[in-house]
């Protein structure tokens, strides 16, 4: 590795607080204690199962759902909804940001209405989505798409506008045409903020899926949760919530992986790789 790169990385010093490993171990002590207390509370009856199931009951529910295949089916449905909605939303967001950022009339044609739409609380649009798209897959996908479009639009547009004019001028001095300038200078420069927007968009996508699936769903994790509510199965509700959390975490990790590869030129990431 280059000697100038690691200087950018502030390495955590090994002080009295111990090595990285012991500190990591220390970090899990209180969560484990918390789960233990929870278990004790449930076993002694201090926490009624109708309010919150015991950790062991949640594990058992999870396992039976795995064995029955229900969990897998609902998971596939939910992931599918997010994947389709997110793809539509991100494509729209990218396309609109490019039009507004690179085509001058686009700025006053599309940006004002988009800024107005952006301020709408998108989860509040659920009733409208149902009226427009019925109660099938469409309103859920539309909600996810609507939610994930704006973060990408805003961050990519901001990135395009923030590209260093000195680099644009250098591109001009070395004979880049308009298309080349966009490809070599503008878009790579806007990629970092756009990827942050992508992460925000994923968060918004999962959130709107949760809301969308609690209305008239007959499949998916949201359905699993709503169905469990009718039977007071708090263990299954918690399993559903944990599934949402893990899916959100996993997809966020995926974008961070893309970030680390696509933004390898950034000094911070170079330092972290060293």
């Amino acid at each position, binding site marked *: 590795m*280059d000697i*100038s*790169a690691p200087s950018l990385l502030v390495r955590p010093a090994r002080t009295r607080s111990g090595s990285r490993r012991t500190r990591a171990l220390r970090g899990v002590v209180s969560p484990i204690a918390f789960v233990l207390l929870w278990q004790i509370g449930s076993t002694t009856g201090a926490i009624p199962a109708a309010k919150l199931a015991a950790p062991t009951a949640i594990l058992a529910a999870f396992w039976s759902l795995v064995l029955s295949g229900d969990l897998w089916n609902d998971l596939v449905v939910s992931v599918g909804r997010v994947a389709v909605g997110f793809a539509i939303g991100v494509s729209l967001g990218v396309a609109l940001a490019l039009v507004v950022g690179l085509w001058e009339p686009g700025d006053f044609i599309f940006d004002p209405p988009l800024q107005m739409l952006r301020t709408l609380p998108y989860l509040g649009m659920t009733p409208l989505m149902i009226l427009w798209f019925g109660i099938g897959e469409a309103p859920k996908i539309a909600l996810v798409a609507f939610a994930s479009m704006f973060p990408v639009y805003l961050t990519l547009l901001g990135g395009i506008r923030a590209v260093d004019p*000195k*680099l644009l*001028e*250098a*591109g*001009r*001095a*070395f*004979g*880049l045409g308009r298309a*080349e300038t966009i490809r*070599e*200078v503008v878009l*790579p*420069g806007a*990629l970092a903020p756009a990827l942050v927007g992508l992460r925000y968009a994923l968060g918004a996508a999962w959130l709107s899926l949760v809301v969308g699936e609690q209305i008239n769903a007959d499949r998916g994790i949201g359905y699993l949760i709503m169905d469990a509510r009718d039977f007071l199965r708090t263990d299954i509700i918690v399993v559903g919530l944990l599934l949402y959390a893990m899916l959100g975490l996993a997809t966020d990790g995926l974008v961070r992986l893309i970030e680390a590869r696509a*933004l*390898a*030129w*950034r*000094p911070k990431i*170079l330092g972290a790789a060293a």
Partner: protein
Amino acid sequence: MRARGLCVAFGENSVLRDLDLDIAPSEFVALLGRSGSGKTTLLRVLAGLQPESSGSLVVPQPRSVVFQEPRLLPWKRIVENVALGLRGGTARAQATAALREVGLEHRLDAWPATLSGGEAQRAGLARALVRNPHFLLLDEPFASVDALTRLRMYDLVIDLWRFHRPSVLLVTHDVDEALLLADRVLVLEGGRIASHIPVGLARPRDPARPRYAELRRDILSLLGVPLPTAPDFDAQDALAAPYPFATGVSA
């Protein structure tokens, strides 16, 4: 390169007024001027980055620029930065050759963020040279480089200039830089070339030579920084006296 009656104005504010300038093929010219004198504007007009308001201008092609900050695209490896805008399948080979010339052949695939200031500026030089310019514009390219690296960069620039023989316009505010490098020093003032000073010293140049010191003094006074004349012995004695104001005794 030839400019006649060149004018550049930003609204009411005219920066270059009726400027005439000729640079001969393979001539190395340094342009000095106080800040705000229009040095950078002139360079940008000659680089084609800004239109002139009026006047006639003939600039030999191809031309290229080395900027004050290296302006490397941070997301492209060094060799790709140098090859930027080159057409044809040999772009990478040409860029590699140019980087070898500036002594960066070991950094071809490095990211710009990992280069030192001097390395980045050498990459900027390679990016300009790879276009085989007949006219090379240098916009204070050594301003952000440390003093020792700067001296080595001077040698490199002179070597490259001798080998490729482009006309060079170096914009700088450093009188010594101008005197160490250029055939001719121009002073820009009030939007026009106020003085032409042929340097006429053999390279490599020695700042200790009396002729060099004389030129330096002349140029500095043209720039409005007159050096004090060498103090005579009495004055030197007075300066050397300990605590001249401490007591009445030393006087």
